[in-house]
């Protein structure tokens, strides 16, 4: 009896070693960066965590193909390092002494990746299944690009400014053309008193009145001929 048990045990361990070893067929390497993800709240990686991992993989296999009944004992872990990294493989209990093909395991893990990550409080970067590519989250894009909105606002403001200046310029010119008599008087008087006193020709005074806001028309009377 004892002999039989010993034989069975040795068979299991050799089988274990046969199936699960670095770079063996259908085996995957997993790498965890717990300290990077959790900092001070990092938990230690021990046998209980390994049990949870086996349970999650079994769960993933069950979710993927409902006919298979994968047990925790089907998931074999080996070569656990301080990193924390290890290899795992899923054996197939229905077919004797074989492992589940790589593609199936990969598809199963990808389907439930989010649940597996959350069980360990990690994400795709800190819980890496080497050679299983992860789907990156799509970037958030709004329907109208934001820059167009800002561009539109600025464009409207500037065009409004240009139109305002052009229109007010035209209005000023119309005003100037309507008052030729008054300016002629100014010019005659200015020819006498042009530079000596203040160095500014009277025309700039005229310009300055043009700058004043139309609402203050009354101020024009300040600049009566000298």
């Amino acid at each position, binding site marked *: 009896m004892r002999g039989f048990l010993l034989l069975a045990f040795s068979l299991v361990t050799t089988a274990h070693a046969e199936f699960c070893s670095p770079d063996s067929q259908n085996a995957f390497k997993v790498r965890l960066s717990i300290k990077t993800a959790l900092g001070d709240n990092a938990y230690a990686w021990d046998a209980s965590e390994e049990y949870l991992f086996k349970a999650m993989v079994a769960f993933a296999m069950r979710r993927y193909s409902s006919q298979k009944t994968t047990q925790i004992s089907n998931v074999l872990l080996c070569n656990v*390092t301080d990193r924390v990294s290890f290899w795992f493989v899923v054996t197939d209990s229905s077919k004797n002494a074989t492992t589940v093909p790589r593609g199936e395991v990969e598809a199963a893990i990808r389907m439930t990746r989010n649940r597996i990550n959350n069980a360990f409080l990690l994400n795709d970067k800190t819980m890496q299944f080497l050679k299983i590519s992860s789907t990156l989250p799509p970037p958030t894009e709004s329907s109208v690009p934001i820059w167009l909105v800002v561009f539109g606002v600025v464009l409207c403001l500037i*065009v409004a400014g240009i139109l305002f200046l052009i229109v007010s310029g035209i209005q000023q010119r119309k005003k100037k053309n309507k008052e030729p008599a008054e300016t002629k008087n100014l010019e005659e008087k200015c020819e006498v008193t042009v530079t000596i006193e203040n160095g500014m020709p009277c025309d700039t005074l005229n310009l300055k009145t043009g700058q004043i806001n139309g609402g203050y028309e009354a101020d024009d009377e300040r600049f009566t001929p000298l």
Partner: protein
Amino acid sequence: MEKSRPLWDNPLQFVFACISYAVGLGNVWRFPYLCQMYGGGVASVVVSFFLSMYYNVINAWAFWYLFHSFQNPLPWAACPLNSNHTGYIEECEKASSTQYFWYRKTLNISPSIEENGSIQWEQAMCLILAWLTVYLCILRGTESTGKVVYLTASLPYLVLIIYLIKALTLHGAVNGLVYMFTPKLEQLANPKAWINAATQIFFSLGLGFGSLIAFASYNEPNNNCEKHAIIVSLINSTTSVFASIVTFSIYGFKATFNYENCLNKAMLLLTNAFDLEEGFLTADNLNHMKEQLMATHPNEYVELLPQIKNCSLEAELDTAVQGTGLAFIVYSEAIKNMEVSQLYSVLYFFMLLMLGIGSMLGNTAAILTPLTDSKFLSTHLPKEVISGIVCFINCIVGLTFTMEAGNYWFDIFNDYAATLSLLLIVLVEIIAVCYVYGLRRFEKDLHLMIGHKLSWYWKIMWAFASPLLIISLFIFYITDYILTGTLQYQAWDATQGHLVTKDYPSYALAVIGLLVASSTMCIPLGALAIFIKRRLKREHRSTVA
């Protein structure tokens, strides 16, 4: 009665205009307004025209980045995903996300200057907006320009102060400052360093540009130009030092960030390869551990060797920054790593815009002043229409810089449109004022304007020091052109994710030659034309008499 010239509202506006103009993006071209008397009036307009054609593209880029700063996260902060969402776009992985945003999203640059590609409509729209902004500012002449320069001159200082406070608190800023202030004694012995310094100051003040002269022509005759000259020069130089402190703090931050990233990558690589415990490798023991690993696992270590880059803070600080594109890349890279990056991004690109528009105002003033002064045009067309036509033509020509190969043509204009011709124009200008017009006459004019006698310092500078300096710079540039042989340019290689050097094709060389020739030849040709005209007039007079 002749309509008098519009004036600045007060002397402060003139000073601000000069500061706004001088404190630009470091590009300045000269305008031989004085030389118009002795030929070369066309030369100045030609040079200023070239300048305004391509310079506004920088403002278009500033607008583009400004509009994109209103997003969270910033679009250049992370690489976009590839089509099946399994990883990042390859070009972005090889280069960095900021470089990808600049070369692909902003410029959509083609692999070489020969492949022209199509006009990028986003860039074209930004360029049109930039020209509309410039038109708005110069529409009414000094009336509107005078008000705008208050903003364009003071706002950059405000932003620089905010950035100074932020930059000095950044992690690693001290490294940049130490780097800036430690003189590299072997570089001081290199004449090229001195020549570059002289060139920078020379160009930075926008001295030979007709812009300053154009601005000054709107001054009252009794304006104290001596005081203003000193003020503007001092302000420009102190601004440069001030801006360098900010810039080097940001370089230090970026260099330290990249250095620490590099170290972390190396540590991760080793930790994963040898399955070491997390946190076992630190920045301090990395080198020691590397040696240990090499001793214990030589085979695997040798395999890893090509992937482990040697991280060096000095090397990161030494990555020289030059050119307009790099200014966008480096700053956006630094900004994306700050907290509240959107705010800093908006501030920075708004400041860049103010600086660019301030310089553009000067350039367009240089073109418009002779045009509006000429009797022929000002009688037929109002000021607004002339400005509009100039802006429109520049905008249409500027659309070539929005094509896929546009940035290569931009670099051509940036490097060759004005450097040589500018030096020649300035040289002619200073010789004309000092020797042809006569230093004594000039001295008397100034005495009339400013009220006191000119000190001997100015006279010596104008008569001897400046011409010598300009001639030596001129000779240096010519020898440099001759020695470098065929001209080359940096092209962006999308497959490798970095710049490669290529030779210019023959038609690009022809354009370069045309650019340099058209501005330099104008002066002697113009002088010849006026000389012939005077000769004919004299003969006509003698025959009549």
